[in-house]
């Protein structure tokens, strides 16, 4: 199938998400769609997959102009998209999710559907039990299901939005194999939306690069990485070299720490994080990293073991007690756990002040806010509410709310969803904290980030911690093995 996008425009208020983008896709090819955050990739793909209409411009399928009223409508015309957060129904069983809106028959035929699904799954070497609940599956498995569902719905062009974020190395291999097979054996078109250049280089035939809502150009890949980076950013951003740093005394010590939850038990964790050290936790989503961070923050009570902060026993301290003692925790859900959607930046700053008076001095608060907005380069006004900010700016706001000095900083996915520039900026900030002697314990799904930014690394697999490795001496490959539970 040949797909052409002509002069696509999409505005959100004053923001030009897409400003006249024209692209072409052919069958039997894998395309990469690159661009930093806010470049307009997601908007464009949502338009192509029927999730939202364009304000102006045309979609042409096999030289016939067409338009989509819904994603389901787009699928009947051969276009399907797998979202980063798959659009499935978590409380349903796999088979129900597969059958949902698949046909117009009154009674669900489970037996036939199970067989059909099994055949499709095994064709692409996927493995999911049809009776499991979607919510008990890994992200990679949910992706596989979406892929299979779209294929059974007749998709000829498949869009995958950041498909490798949060899935295991093994699942990634399976996914890439199936993508190659879809394109080269079955003649389908695959579009990979990604910010991971290595993956685009490895998998794609051709890459389109977007910047600020416009198409910068297309390029045959593989090609030198610098070329892609230059297209994405207009120039090659200078990579900050990670400063070496003298480590101080132990700040955080975990002794035989165990945490029990109905889903997962984290067992016997022993580790120390020193002043000025960055300690990375790797592992698949739901392997216990988050539980560990929450236990350190005082949000979860460990079932066994001890927590020490600068040699002081804090196992039974509450979250607020630890906060006052200089422990800070930044959760991954920025709007869910970190910020209050309807409150302005100024109101957030007021809430984050260490001292609360009965009456708020709004004038002083506004001054502090203006200053923080400047220091933390937040794109927004003091009275912008948190939900009006972009993801990167929400993260900046979160960091601007941290008090100084801190003894221990706990971070869950500190740079998830951020582009290279914002990521570098965040880590610059963290390195500053490090100089002040703050110990940093963080988790990330991005192995490159873990290796590049940490001093030492531990991997969690099913609640069990691996040996601790030195970041300078390890490789993605070694961590990949540890993630799989191998010693």
């Amino acid at each position, binding site marked *: 199938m040949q797909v052409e996008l002509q002069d696509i425009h999409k505005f959100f208020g004053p923001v030009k998400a897409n400003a006249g983008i024209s692209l072409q896709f052919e069958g039997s090819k894998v395309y990469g769609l690159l661009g930093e955050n806010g470049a307009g990739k997601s908007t464009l793909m949502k338009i192509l997959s029927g*999730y*939202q209409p364009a304000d102006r411009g045309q979609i042409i399928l096999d030289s016939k102009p067409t338009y989509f009223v*819904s*994603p*389901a*409508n787009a699928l009947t015309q051969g276009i399907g998209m797998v979202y980063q957060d798959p*659009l*499935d*129904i*978590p*409380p*349903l069983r796999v088979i*129900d999710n597969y*059958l*949902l*809106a698949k*046909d*117009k*028959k*009154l*009674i*669900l035929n489970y037996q036939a559907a199970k067989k059909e699904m099994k055949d499709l799954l095994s064709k692409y070497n996927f493995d999911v039990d049809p009776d499991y609940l979607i919510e008990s599956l890994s992200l990679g498995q949910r992706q596989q299901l979406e892929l299979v569902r779209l294929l059974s719905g007749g998709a000829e062009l498949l869009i995958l939005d950041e498909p490798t974020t949060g899935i295991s190395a093994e699942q990634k291999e399976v996914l890439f194999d199936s993508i190659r097979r879809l394109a080269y054996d079955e003649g389908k078109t695959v579009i990979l939306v990604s910010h991971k250049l290595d993956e685009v280089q490895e998998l794609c035939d051709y890459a389109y690069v977007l910047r600020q809502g416009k198409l910068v150009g297309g390029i045959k890949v593989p090609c030198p990485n610098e070329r892609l980076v230059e297209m994405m950013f207009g120039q090659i951003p200078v990579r900050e070299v990670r400063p070496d740093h003298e480590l101080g005394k132990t700040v955080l010590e975990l002794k035989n720490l165990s945490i*029990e*939850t*109905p889903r997962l038990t984290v067992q016997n964790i022993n580790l120390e994080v020193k002043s000025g050290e960055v300690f990375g936790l790797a592992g698949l989503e739901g392997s216990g990293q988050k539980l560990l961070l929450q236990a350190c923050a005082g949000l979860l009570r460990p079932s066994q073991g001890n927590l020490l902060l600068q040699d002081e026993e804090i196992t039974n301290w509450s979250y607020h007690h630890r906060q006052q003692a200089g422990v800070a925790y930044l959760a991954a859900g920025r709007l869910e756990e970190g910020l209050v959607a309807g409150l302005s930046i100024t109101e957030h700053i007021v809430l984050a002040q260490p001292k609360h008076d009965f009456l708020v001095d709004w004038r002083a608060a506004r001054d502090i806010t203006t200053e923080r907005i400047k220091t933390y380069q937040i794109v927004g006004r003091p009275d912008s509410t948190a939900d009006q900010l972009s993801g990167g700016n929400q993260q900046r706001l979160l960091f601007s709310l941290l008090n100084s000095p801190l003894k221990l900083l706990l971070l869950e996915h500190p740079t998830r969803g951020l582009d290279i520039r914002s990521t570098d900026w965040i880590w610059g900030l963290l390195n500053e904290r490090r100089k002040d002697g703050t110990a940093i314990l963080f988790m990330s799904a991005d192995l490159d980030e873990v290796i590049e930014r940490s001093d030492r690394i531990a991997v969690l697999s099913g609640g069990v911690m691996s040996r601790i490795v030195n970041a300078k001496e390890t490789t993605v490959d070694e961590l990949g093995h540890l993630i799989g539970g191998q010693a």
Partner: protein
Amino acid sequence: MSDELIRQLASILLQSSPLIIAVSGETITERVGVINLSVDGTMMMAAMTGFVVGLKTDSLLYGFLAAAIVGAIMALLVAFGSFRLKQNQVAIGFVLTLLGDDLSAFLGQNYTRIPGPVVKHLPIPVLKDIPIIGPIFFNQDLVVYFAIVLIFLTWWYLNRTQPGLHLRSVGERPEASFARGINVNRLRYIYTIVGGGLIGIAGAAYSLDVKLGWSDGHTRGLGWIALAIVIFGGWSPVRGALGAILFGATKALATVLQRTFPEVSVVAFNSIPWLLMIFVLLTVGSEFTERLILLMPKPMRGPMSRALRVSPPMALGTTFENE
């Protein structure tokens, strides 16, 4: 089994039937993601309307039909206010409850405490002669049969049919349903209205059958019980019906205890059903249950957790707008 016990069980089933119907209606509504909090007021309006229309037309059918229409209209108000006018679902439902209470008292003031039509006893031949089961389940009237069929029909529709799957998906994650080509708000209108109609029928089932006649505040409080039982039943039609029957049984038990211990205040026994309900609401799906599950032997944990851990439809009470 003694005849007395069988009679008692048959009576519990009859007493619980209107509640079963109301619980089914509200379960359908909530499974599609809408909270219709007006149940109590709706049932009173429907009980009054059903009684008056039944009396005036001398037709039970018209009585029930009118009650269903009243229920559907009340539900439509909740749906329209919430989806179209973007107002708070819970607030609308709550005010409708208050309205239904007083409006039914006003409109029905000339019809209080007078005899009216009664749903006739209708034993099913052959089946009624089966020992034990016969007299309990098949020596009843149409309201009871309707309630029993409704339990299984609702379960079957939700779990075995494509439209039922649509319904569930809309209550859990409307964005995903929309992506599959499902018209989220249309389904929500339809099932909120259907649910309201059932709640209306439940109201008339009181005034025309289980609690005959009309008086001011005739079914007051029963709507709230239905709402609690929906949660108690974990949003499942079958468990909801069991909850309704259990509630009826504890009420019957209270009556028996009252007769046995005449010296204890009546009020003490009347609170038994509530004690049971608050206990279940506090424990089911809580941290306590999680711990209880962890204490069990490994192979038991899976099924037990499925049975005890309940969670509301993920999108319950939210509104949906496609971008």
